[in-house]
């Protein structure tokens, strides 16, 4: 009963603290929104178009480019703007439809269309390939119209005929097929930002939350409590329970916000629940340990978030470990974060259930057991010292 009372009081104190509520709920929500919105289209090619003059053949090319499949096509006012946006990385490439294109094509000349690019040569080559497929479709049409117009005149109406024929006639096509292999990444957008921010914030909150234990110690609250018939183990269990409840409460809020506001599908409830529980246990161990490791509350609140962010980066909660060099991936798996992210990838991207994440749960359980044991022993020693 005494541990429950201690846990209840700690929880009540937290809920009354507006700053804590900001860090527990509002901040993760905003971060999920910002990172989710930013990364939603990550990986998609972004190509700008600087439209030239509005003549028949130029306009036809711009129309074709606008409908490039799978490419984020953006209109750009002029070449200078395109260059600035390319430099800043807002675009991967920009097609500049040259002035005089119409006249050049009508005269039978071959037209060079500049594709501006800023990145590494291989990245420019990727954009070049993607755009050239679409340009080839337009060039095919113009070639056919010119071929017919050389014999029968009236290029504009031949272009209309070629367009209609291009859509109707059987041509040697190219079709894309996605092989049904499970993804190694979390789902794009909010499906990625919600679970990773859950990991990051439950952990950071626990680390910074160690400040409460330090305050209770420095103010002599623990000593005063023990003047009553309360044993050190009651305080250890009570504090631990409080951290676990806080971690679970924060996780539940992030899951609810993710599902309701951002439409995140959290996968198999049993597997997701197990991941959340075991992560809250890892957070609990970390929080209580931080309460016994840091000397002052200020250290815990200041250094805690920095340590949490660094471990999140190492463990793949800030960016996928799939994109980092293999040694960094190995080092990352020394943190519990990497195992938790692996578990979420299995559950959210491959439809995995409880048994599919057995290894991840076991490793995380091991982390939690070591952290909780060390933290409890240290706290108990501090209380009885």
């Amino acid at each position, binding site marked *: 009963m005494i541990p429950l009372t201690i846990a209840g009081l700690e929880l009540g104190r937290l809920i009354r603290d*507006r700053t804590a509520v900001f860090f527990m709920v509002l901040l993760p929500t905003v971060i999920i929104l*910002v*990172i989710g*919105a*930013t990364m939603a289209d990550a990986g998609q090619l972004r190509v700008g178009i600087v439209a030239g003059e509005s003549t028949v053949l130029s306009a036809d090319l711009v129309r074709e480019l606008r409908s490039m499949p*799978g490419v984020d096509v953006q209109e750009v006012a002029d070449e200078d703007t395109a260059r600035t946006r*390319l*430099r*800043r*990385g*807002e675009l991967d490439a920009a*097609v500049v439809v040259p002035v005089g294109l119409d006249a050049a*094509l009508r005269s039978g000349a*071959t*037209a060079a*269309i*500049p594709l*501006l*690019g*800023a990145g590494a040569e*291989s990245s*420019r080559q*990727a954009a070049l*390939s993607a755009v050239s*497929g*679409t*340009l*080839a*479709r337009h*060039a*095919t049409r113009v*070639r*056919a*119209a010119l071929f017919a117009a050389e*014999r*029968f005149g009236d290029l504009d109406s*031949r272009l209309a005929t070629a367009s209609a*024929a291009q859509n109707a*006639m059987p*041509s*040697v*096509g*190219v079709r*894309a*097929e*996605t*092989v049904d*292999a499970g*993804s190694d990444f979390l789902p794009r957008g909010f499906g990625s930002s919600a679970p990773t921010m859950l990991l990051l914030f439950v952990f950071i909150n626990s680390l910074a939350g160690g400040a409460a234990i330090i305050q209770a110690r420095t103010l002599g609250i623990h000593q005063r409590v023990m003047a009553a018939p309360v044993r050190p183990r009651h305080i250890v269990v009570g504090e631990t329970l409080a951290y676990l409840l806080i971690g679970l409460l924060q996780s539940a809020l992030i899951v609810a916000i993710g599902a309701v506001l951002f439409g995140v599908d959290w996968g198999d409830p049993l597997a997701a629940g197990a991941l959340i529980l075991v992560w809250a246990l890892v957070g609990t161990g970390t929080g209580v340990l931080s309460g016994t490791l840091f000397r002052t509350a200020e*250290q815990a*609140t200041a*250094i805690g978030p*920095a340590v949490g*962010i*660094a471990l999140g*980066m190492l463990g793949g909660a800030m960016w996928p470990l*799939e*994109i980092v*060099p293999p040694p*960094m991936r190995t080092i990352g798996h020394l943190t519990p974060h990497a195992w938790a992210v692996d578990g979420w990838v299995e559950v959210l991207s491959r439809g995995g259930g409880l048994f599919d994440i057995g290894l991840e749960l076991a490793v995380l359980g091991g982390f939690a057991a070591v952290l909780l044991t060390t933290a409890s022993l240290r706290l108990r020693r501090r209380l009885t010292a």
Partner: protein
Amino acid sequence: MTILIIAAKDLRQRLRDKSAIVLGFLAPVAIAWLMSAAFGGVGGFHLEAAVVDQDGGDIAAAFTAMLADDDLADLVTLHPVSGVDDARAKLADGEVSAVFVLPAGFSAAVRGTAAVPVTVLGTVDEPVARQVGVAVAEAFVARFNAVRLSVVTALAAGADPATVADLAAEAARLDLPEYLVDTPIGSRQLSAISYFGPGMGIFFAMFAIGFTARGYHAEREAGTLDRLLAAPVRRGSVLAGKSLAAFAYAMASLTTMAVVTTLVFDAYWGPLPAAAALIAAMALAMAALTALVISLTRNQRQAEGLASMLTFGLVLLGGNFVFVSVAPAALRGLALFTPNGWALRGFTDLATGAPATAALLPVAAIVGFAAATAVIATAATRWRRP
């Protein structure tokens, strides 16, 4: 003079605190190292591909030869596969990211009128690879489709159907009338460390706002501030001194970050005067924010809470944690409502080779933000004076 003495005392006190050293100097460097290590191996795009030739004809062989050509060596590496199943397995393992399947009858179909498609197999994790694969194949088949379309269009215009073979032969001799030219704009490439170096430096330097504001209220609560005010020192001077300490701390922290990331991680913060101006402007904005937090709060707890919310709110909107250039236009616009968003815009421009003058507008915007914040802080101090 009083302001300088107060600021110097505050800085000495701050530097005795290990947390301030960790947050202002060690943590940003450690995080920058992490980012550099994580993104160091992220290069440009390269297509690991395989061809499954079920046709065996000359056009299928020409397609494979095109992919293996030296012109595409920077873009494509071909991996041998024994068949479709092997190719699918290699796709699933991540060994290749796109597979071209040329079906039986492909070469004959290209010469005739049948529609036998090339299939490009890809994975969900590499949409760009699939897309590039499709585009490469489309560009290859385009010349054959151009012949067909030319003949069909000529026939529709009134050509004699008996001359189809001649028309096709003639059309086959013609090239496509448009082609793309790779035109590099000659800018420097923005490395992760050149963006996240300033991003993380600003984030950690902003913790000075909370430290300093809390320190002010700690002194007030302990009564030392009242004793100080008993001397001929104005409350405004104390506020200015505290803000100056935050300015100096932020300058030192950001400068350390710039020097260490430049020397150790090869970051580029831009030409020295422009980068220094951006750092100084940003430190000024942090000093003004410190004054604002002090003026709007009544105790340490409030100061810590408001400073944390301001810090995290600004860094989130400003793009310190995400590469803001890939964000949607609305988020990019929002970033320019924050001083750190402007600073990152400035550092991005400088790091990508824009002239030093590109920092002028960001510096002006940050100084404007600092001035507006200082005016609000002054008004709030006067209004709340007992």
